[in-house]
C-alpha cells in the first residue's frame, strides 16, 4: 500500500475577527484588541471545523499534521481526528510568525498539502514561508479575501483537499493578493500582488480525464501557448508594458528574458528596457512612443486593471490608447472567474473605466480569442 498522505492544518485564530464588527481586517495589534472588545469570536476555528468535518469520514486516508491548541489541535480533536501535533505557541497570543513557522515546519515534514484557515494576511504569511514549494489551500475565514487561493466555502475546501489527496485535483499557481488595510478602512482600495501559492483546483470545470492530453492541458502549457502567440507577433516598433503575474511572465520566459513576477516591466525589440516601474517612470518612458499594454485578469476575481497593477494608471492607459491594451488569460482562468461574469476594471478614473468597458477580446491560446464583457 502506498504511504498515507500527509495533510497539514494551520488555523490563524485571529483571522476574520474584524469582519463581523466592521473593522475590515485584523492586521495590527490595536485592531485585534478593538475587535475582541467589540465581541468578535473565533470565526476561523469554526470555519476550519466545517472543513475537517467533511474530511472526517475519510480519516483513514491521510495523516493530519497540525500546530498546538487554537492553531489546529483543538479543532482536530473535536472531529475525532488524531493529529500529529508539532511546534509550540503562546496560547491566545499567536502572531504572523507562528503561521510562518507552522508552514515551514510542515514543509520540512514534507506534507502533501497545507490547509490554512484565514484571510489574505494569512495567505501572505504562508506564501512568504513556503512560496510554491508545497501545495496549499485556503479555508475562507478572513475578512479580506482578494487572493485566488481560497476554496469557495469551507466545505468545498474539504472536498477539494480530498480530491487532491486522491490525485484527482490538479494544481495551479494562484495569486496571493492583499490590500493596504489602512487605506481600505478609509474606503480606498489599493490591492497588491504578493506572490503565488500552488493550489489544487476543481477539475469539474474541465472534463475529468476522459479523452486524454488535450482536455487536461495544464495551466503552464496553456500559458506557454499564449506566450508563443504574443511573442511571435511582437512588433519591433512598439514598447510592450508587461503587467504582473505568471501568465505575463510566461511571455518573458518565451523571449528568454528576465521579468519581475509582481512588477510592471517594459520590453522593446524582445529585450527588457526597464523593470519594476512605477506610474511616473512608465509615463516618462512611453512619452511620444508607440506602446502596448499586455495584462491578465486576476484569477477568481477578474480584475484587469486596478488590482495589483496600479502602476498602469489611467494616465498610462490613456496615453497608450485603449486599442493597444492586450488582455490574455488561459481558458482555465476565465472559467475560474465564471462564465457569464464580466471582467472588471477599477482604474480610479471613471472615464478610462468607461472606455475599457464593453465587449473586449481576450487572447486565450494560439489563434484563439474570447469575447468577454468588461464592466467597471
Amino acid at each position, binding site marked *: 500500500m502506498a504511504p498515507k498522505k500527509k495533510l497539514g492544518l494551520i488555523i490563524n485564530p485571529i483571522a476574520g475577527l474584524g469582519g463581523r464588527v466592521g473593522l475590515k481586517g485584523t492586521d495590527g495589534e490595536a485592531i485585534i484588541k478593538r475587535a475582541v472588545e467589540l465581541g468578535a469570536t473565533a470565526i476561523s476555528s469554526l470555519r476550519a471545523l466545517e472543513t475537517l468535518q*467533511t474530511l472526517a*469520514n475519510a480519516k483513514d486516508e491521510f495523516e493530519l499534521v497540525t500546530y498546538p491548541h487554537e492553531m489546529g489541535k483543538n479543532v482536530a480533536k473535536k472531529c475525532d481526528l488524531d493529529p500529529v501535533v508539532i511546534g509550540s505557541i503562546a496560547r491566545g497570543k499567536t502572531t504572523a510568525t507562528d503561521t510562518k513557522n507552522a508552514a515551514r515546519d510542515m514543509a520540512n515534514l514534507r506534507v502533501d498539502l497545507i490547509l490554512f484557515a484565514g484571510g489574505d494576511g494569512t495567505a501572505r504569511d504562508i506564501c512568504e514561508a513556503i512560496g510554491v514549494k508545497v501545495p496549499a489551500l485556503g479555508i475562507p475565514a478572513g475578512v479580506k479575501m482578494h487572493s485566488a487561493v481560497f476554496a469557495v*466555502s469551507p*466545505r*468545498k475546501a474539504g*472536498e477539494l483537499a480530498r480530491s487532491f489527496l486522491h*490525485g484527482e485535483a490538479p494544481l495551479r499557481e494562484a495569486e496571493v493578493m492583499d490590500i493596504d488595510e489602512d487605506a481600505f478602512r478609509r474606503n480606498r482600495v489599493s490591492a497588491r500582488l504578493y506572490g503565488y501559492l500552488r493550489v489544487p483546483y476543481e477539475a*469539474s*470545470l*474541465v*472534463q*475529468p*480525464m*476522459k*479523452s*486524454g*492530453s488535450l*482536455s*487536461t492541458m495544464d495551466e503552464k502549457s496553456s500559458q506557454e501557448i499564449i506566450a508563443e502567440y504574443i511573442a511571435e507577433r511582437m512588433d519591433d516598433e512598439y514598447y510592450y508594458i508587461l503587467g504582473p503575474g505568471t501568465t505575463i511572465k510566461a511571455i518573458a520566459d518565451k523571449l528568454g528574458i528576465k521579468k519581475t513576477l509582481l512588477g510592471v516591466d517594459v520590453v522593446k525589440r524582445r529585450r527588457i528596457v526597464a523593470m519594476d516601474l512605477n506610474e511616473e517612470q512608465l509615463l516618462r518612458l512611453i512619452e511620444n512612443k508607440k506602446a502596448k499594454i499586455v495584462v491578465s485578469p486576476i484569477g477568481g476575481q477578474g480584475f484587469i486593471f486596478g488590482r495589483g497593477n496600479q502602476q498602469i494608471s489611467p494616465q498610462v492607459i490613456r496615453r497608450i490608447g485603449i486599442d493597444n491594451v492586450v488582455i490574455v488569460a488561459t*481558458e482555465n482562468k476565465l*472559467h475560474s472567474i*465564471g*462564465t*457569464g*461574469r464580466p471582467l472588471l476594471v477599477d482604474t480610479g478614473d471613471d472615464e478610462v473605466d468607461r472606455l475599457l468597458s*464593453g*465587449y*473586449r*477580446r481576450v487572447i*486565450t491560446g494560439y*489563434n*484563439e*480569442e*474570447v*469575447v*468577454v*464583457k468588461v464592466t467597471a
Partner: protein
Amino acid sequence: MKDKDVTNYHAVRWREPIIYELERKGRRGFMVPTVEAEVKARAGDVVSSIPKKMRRKAPPELPQLSEPEVVRHFIHLSQQTFGVDSGINVGVGTCTMKYNPKINEALARSPRITELHPLQDEETVQGILEIMYKLQGWLCEISGMDKFSFQPRGGAHAVFANACIIRAYHNLNGELDDRDEIITTVVSHPCNAAAPAAAGFKIVTLYPNGETGCPDIEAVKAAVSKHTAGMMITDPYDTGIFDSNITEYIKIVHEAGGLVAIDQANANCILGRVKIGDLGADLCHFNLHKSFSTPHGSCGPGGAPIGVKEELAKFLPVPTVEFDGTKYYLDYDKTHSIGKVAEFHGVVPNVVRAYAWIMTMGAQGLKETSEVAVMNNNYLLKKLLEIRGVSLPWGKHHPFRMQDVRLSLEKQKEETGIGIDEVNRRIVDFGVQRCFTSHEPWIIPEPFTPEPSETASKQDLDRFAGIFRQISTEAYTDPETLKKAPHNCAISKVDLTPSSDPKKWAMTWRAYLKKHR
C-alpha cells in the same frame, strides 16, 4: 443492496482478458491446406510481383487462438456492452440515441447494397444513385439549402468540410488574407472551434450571457470586423436552447462580409419546423446517425451530409450526384471544388438507412418525430426538476427546452459530495445507460444532459426519473453506497488517470508492452 427499482438488473461479468493474453502459441483458427502441385504449377510465381520492401520479414504478431476461442472471446465482450437495443438510453443527450428500425437495417444489409462497388459504371448503379439524389433533395427540403454532399463521415468532419468551403469562398474573392477569423460560441459543439482552427482560421469564441444562456447580440457585433470569415455555431445548442437570436447573428455576420454555417448535427427537434437555410444560413450539416436514425458508428461509419446555398455549390466536394431528366450521374466538373474530403461517396449504407427511414415516416412523420422528442424531453425535465439537488441553469429564461437539456447536480454535490461522476457510476446498476455530461469546457458545474428522443415511452421516462430520484435519496442518506458503485455491472471503477498521461496510455498491444511491461 435492495433496489427499489424492480428490474433487479445484473450485468454479465466475465473479467475477459485482452485477446493477446488468451494466446497459446501454436493454436490456429484453421489450417490452410497445402497447395497441390498442379495448382502451384499453373499459378506460377505469385510472390515476386510484391515489391521487396513491402514484403514482411517476419509474420505479423497476431494472437494465436482456435476459432471457438475467438468466437467465445468476442461473444463475452458483446455481452458486456450496453446499447440502444439493450435498455433505456434517455441519458445520452446531444447524441440522439433513437431506436433504429430493423427494416432499415435489413435494406442496408441486402446484397444489392453490400455487393455494390463505388467504381462500377454509372449505368449499372442507377438505383443507388437515385436513392442518393432523392435523399439529397429531401435534405434540401428539410434544411432550406440548395445542394448536399454525403462525403463527410461525421459531424466534425462535416464542420471541417464547411470551413474549407468558407476558406475557398474568400480565397476566390481574393479576401482570404484579410478574412481569417471564425466566430463561434462556447456552447456550440467544440468542433465548431477545432475544425476551422485545423483549416487555418483564428477562432473568436463568444460566451453566453449569464441569464439567457446565449451570447448577447452586442457581443456578436463586437466580434465581427473586416477580418471575419464567418460564423460557425451549433443551433439548437445541446443545452436544449434554440438560440432565437440566430437571424440577428446571420444579419450581422453577412453585413460584415462573412458566411454563416450552422451545425445541425442534432436536428431532432426542428424537423419540419425550422429551415435554417430560410433563416439565412449559408451552410449547414446534419448527422444521419442522430436525427435520421442510422446507427452510431463509434468513430466508424457515421454520415454527416453538408448542405449549402446555390452560390456555394461550386465549392462542394466532388463528385456530386446529378440527374439529367433521364439518368443519374456523378458530376466531377466543379471548377472551384474543395476536392475530396473522403473517398468516394460517403457511407452509402447509411444513406440507404436514412432514405428508408424518411420514406417510412413521411413528411408528417418527421414533424411528429420532433414534436414527440420535444414533448418527451420536457416531460422528463419536469420530473427531474422535482428531484432534490437537480437544477436547470438559465431556467428563468428557458424553462422549457428543445430535444435535450443540460441540467446541473451542483447543489447535490455541494450538499452530499455526490456529483455526476458518482451518479453515472450508480445509474448503470439499474440497467440503464449513463448520462452524457457535457462537451468541454464544463461551463455548467456537475452537468448532465438527458435526451429521450421520440423513442422513449412514458413508462421509460417514468422509470428513468424514478431511478434518478432513488439515487438522489441515496446521495442524501447513504452516500457511501454510491461512492462504491457500480455494484451490478461488468466492471466497476476504472482508473482513468493513465488515459491522460502520454507515458502510460496505450492504444495498441505493442504500445502496452512497451510502456507497462
